[in-house]
């Protein structure tokens, strides 16, 4: 044990005895490991930032979109929905919706708006806040009732018109009575087919009246806790192929998107890490060069150590230890710089900073390996010296 402790002490003493040279060797490793750590952390945080957009975005939902002719009845859609409820386990709620666009008019003012025909379940899934009045319901049947989105309310308010419960507005020549007004609802593309803020939401059955082109249908299903999305998507796929054989159906879940993003950012992070790795490699070559110079300059010391009893192994260990300590120290300093750089980058982009532990392990671990690898050749060269040459030369 004392042997190892003395080995380290001797190595540190030797490194400190030529401080400029040691500092130069260190610099290469510092830059290299800082690069690796910064890159990996930046990649990690980019991924986190992207994933954050999906936070709370209906992570348990699966969406089915398809287009069918206007002749398809709402009854057929609801029938399909009920079938899916029965045949596929793990689906808690399924909302059926269809959407269209048009112009909303009232007292001479107008605004572009979407219209969403939806079953009750949509409100259960979205849980929007009401500013006034009530939400539409299946019980409304095909009555031309609708709930007004927040942005539309604001648009009319800016024109001096305060829309409220009981007002009759005209959507594309069809009169609609407002039964409620919603608060601001941030758009969630997985859960709602179109931004709610810009829409009138009406009962599904009434939509024929409001919108000629009811061909875009969507079923939004919320899966039960722990139900795997891939399994559900597979089952939905086979069911829908049977029920709608001629139709293009698109099934998607946010988890799928997240997985794709993770896959892509993984490639990004690996690439960035590799770039940093190249930098570290260059640093390692620098260490090797400097160690070789050191060995060359300390020939007499090496010869002497051999004369007083150092074996080949002892000499190799001595120089390997020096290289290792150099690279470990460089790795740790680089760690600090790398984290600082990554922190700066995330602040610049306005993301919150999260430290990737993998980067720490990677940075320090790879620095160590670099030390061992690039320190080996000089160590072997030192051990091969002939004491006779070194002790009596010059």
């Amino acid at each position, binding site marked *: 044990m004392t042997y190892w402790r003395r080995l380290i002490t001797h190595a540190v003493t030797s490194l400190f005895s030529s401080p400029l040279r040691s500092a130069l060797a260190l610099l290469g490793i510092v830059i290299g490991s800082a690069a690796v750590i910064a890159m990996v952390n930046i990649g990690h945080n980019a991924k986190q930032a992207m994933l954050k957009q999906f936070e709370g975005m209906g992570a348990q939902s699966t969406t089915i979109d398809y287009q069918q002719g206007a002749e398809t009845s709402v009854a057929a859609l609801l029938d399909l929905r009920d079938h899916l409820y029965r045949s596929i386990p793990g689906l808690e709620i399924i909302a059926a919706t269809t959407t269209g666009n048009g112009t909303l008019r009232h007292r001479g003012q107008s605004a572009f708006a979407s219209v969403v025909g939806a079953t009750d379940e949509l409100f259960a899934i979205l849980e929007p806040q009401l500013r006034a009045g009530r939400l539409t319901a299946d019980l409304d049947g095909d009555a031309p009732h609708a709930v007004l989105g927040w942005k539309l309310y604001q648009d009319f308010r800016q024109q001096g018109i305060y829309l409220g419960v009981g007002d009759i507005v005209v959507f594309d020549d069809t009169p609609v009575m407002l039964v409620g007004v919603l608060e601001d609802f941030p758009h969630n593309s997985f859960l709602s087919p179109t931004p709610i803020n810009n829409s009138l939401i009406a009962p599904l059955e009434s939509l024929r009246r409001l919108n000629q082109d009811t061909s875009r249908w969507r079923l939004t299903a919320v899966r039960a806790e722990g139900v795997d999305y891939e399994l559900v998507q597979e089952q939905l796929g086979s069911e829908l192929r049977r029920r709608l054989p001629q139709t293009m159906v698109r099934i998607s879940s946010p988890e799928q998107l997240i997985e794709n993003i993770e896959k892509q950012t993984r490639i990004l992070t690996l690439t960035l890490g590799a770039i940093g790795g190249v930098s570290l490699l260059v640093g390692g070559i620098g260490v090797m060069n400097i160690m070789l110079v050191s060995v060359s300059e300390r020939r*007499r010391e090496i010869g002497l150590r051999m004369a007083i009893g150092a074996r080949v192994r002892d000499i190799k260990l001595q120089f390997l230890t020096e290289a290792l300590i150099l690279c470990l120290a460089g790795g740790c300093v680089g760690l600090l710089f790398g984290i600082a750089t990554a922190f700066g980058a995330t602040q610049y982009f306005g993301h919150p900073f999260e430290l990737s532990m993998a980067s720490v392990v990677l940075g320090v671990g790879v620095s160590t390996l670099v030390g061992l690898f690039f320190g080996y050749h000089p160590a072997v060269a030192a051990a091969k010296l002939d004491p006779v040459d070194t002790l009596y030369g010059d």
Partner: protein
Amino acid sequence: MVLDNVRKAYGHATGSVEALKGINLSIERGELIAIVGQSGSGKSTLMNILGMLARPTAGRYRFDGRDVAELSADQRAALRNRSIGFVFQSFHLLPQMVAVENVALPLHYRQTSEAEAGERARRALVKVGLEARMHHKPGELSGGQQQRVAIARAIVTHPRVLLADEPTGALDSETGEEILSLFLELNRNDGITTIMVTHNPEVAARCERCLVLRDGMLLSDTRSFDKHISLA
């Protein structure tokens, strides 16, 4: 230490040069020997062979009855560590370590504990009269003091043989005399076999046995019995 028709050749681009051409030599425990010769006579090569730093290209070298050629490099290193102390003309102290650390260096390769190594190094420095400068670096010591540190390092392992290559070559005559006295004292009091390479005839005269080398061969091997008797 027995050399039996030992030859040593070094290879060069133009052909090999034989530095030692058949040396026959036998050295007993406790002897005080000077090896003299001009430069190129092979005296340094002889020292290297005796110290197991080089291997004969022909002939046999037996140390303590064992044929050195049968030993592996690691075994020779261990033997050097235990039984041989080296002192060089240019001291060869490590500049980044203080005196006591330099002296303790051979003990590092013997896996000696920190405490024991420190104590033994200190005692060796006391023996050469440099205890006061224990924590000085070589750069802070005079030539004579550095050589004393080197001698302390050579004896810290209680070796049986001390090999000194021109130990006073880099010192002025007064300091050289002090160093020489130290060698004589160690040889006399501790019975360490002491072999010195020197070109200085005065140094040679102080040794009881003198080997003269010329062109790689042993020209003469004289013992001055008078000296031997007077030292006793």
